């Protein structure tokens, strides 16, 4: 079952990526720059305090067996 899923993922994932990228030119931003004032508010920052976030991640990684995948990803609000 897992093998079939893996094969399907290997075929479908590149198709999805190619399909997505080939459509890049045609995608209109559905949230216009002038509609991003709320997203630009500091309270919407996914990682407003990187030193504090890194520290508390360190605490959780030291106290639990899991690691990674938590916290902020790259990316902003596109407000620049």
């Amino acid at each position, binding site marked *: 079952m897992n093998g079939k899923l893996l094969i399907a993922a290997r075929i479908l994932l590149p198709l999805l990526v190619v399909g997505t990228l080939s459509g*890049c030119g045609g*995608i*209109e*931003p*559905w*949230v216009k*720059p002038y*509609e*991003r004032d*709320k*997203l630009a*508010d*500091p*309270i*919407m920052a*996914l*990682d407003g*305090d*990187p*030193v*504090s*976030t*890194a*520290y*508390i*991640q*360190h*605490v*959780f*990684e*030291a*106290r*639990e*067996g*899991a*690691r*990674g*995948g*938590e*916290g*902020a*990803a*790259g*990316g*902003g*609000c*596109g*407000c*620049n």
Partner: protein
Amino acid sequence: MIRRTLTIAAFLMAFGAAHAGVLPDDRTDVLYHLYDGGGVEIDGPSVLVRKKVGKSLSFVGNYYVDMVSSASIDVITTASPYTEERKQWSLGMDYLRGNTTMSVNYTVSEESDFDGETVSFSVSQDMFGDLTTLTLSYALGDDLVRRSDDPTFEQPLDRQIYGVGLTQILTKNLISSLNVETVTEEGYLNNPYRSVRYFDAGSALGYSFEPELYPNTRTSNAVGVRMRYFLPYRAAVEGEYRFFTDTWDVEGHTASISYIHPWRDFTFTGKLRYHDQTGAHFYRDVFSRSQATNFRGRDKELSPLTSYTFKLQAAYEFLSDDGNDTWGFIKRAKVTASLNMLSVDYHDFSDLSVGEVLGSEPLYQLDANVIQVFFSFFY
């Protein structure tokens, strides 16, 4: 031996705030941290300085110290209380070109019985009218594990971290992110001081100890999703979920919900976090005999457990960027205080400190307070 966990956290700090089409703000953070719980007290400073040079380069440096005083359950069971200090330096650079940001970061960590070096790279690209940011990252870690009681003991540990992050604006009130991270490690993964226990009828308590022995490879995968929503009034709510799995059979689910509420010059944050995990396949609270299995460990962090964290944070902006008042080149400044109350229930880790005979020891439970106070200056 606090060590390698910080590498991944440092990796997050290096790239966590990366924005593709714009360089991060110039800022300086001076933080004091204190962890107090389970007989362990760790405190120290962390200082971060970030500064742009020209329009396309930003440099960042961080200095971090852990001063440890430990009489933890592991230590009082099989060793003696100790104190130690750990220092970490990192230096990074971000280069912006069009909608692409390329970053490089170098981190060095030093302890009396551990040295770590990590080099990391990332590329972020804004797409679709800046609604989407894709980040690819890679880090290579090269560590050396030693023993404080044996100068001849020295074992290498290599680590690679692969990350893919996607941040997506979904509506004018909702931003989301997806993170996938794979960590592969090869080398000396167990703690050179920790022991496992096994049945021993000849012992007064019914058990004895022997050194733990871990596999020398570990690969983990984590997938995390976050959503932050701007409420109809000026406040935000965030939900987060992370699924974790690794080749040691640890499987974890982590979920949290946060509420962020600004009021005048203050911003208040409350957060509830829940984590639940299974234990590693070679973990036992007590083994049936000496050298009962090929690999054996009794690290409570690799045992089945459930943890709960409640966070309260308040930030006060004492210098606003409103053009009326500045402190020389500093445009904005704030002070933040936060308290995380962490509670961990271990489902298969006995508290041996009570000295009960085998079979009648209670399960261990940990409560810890994590305090942070930091000043942030923006310029």
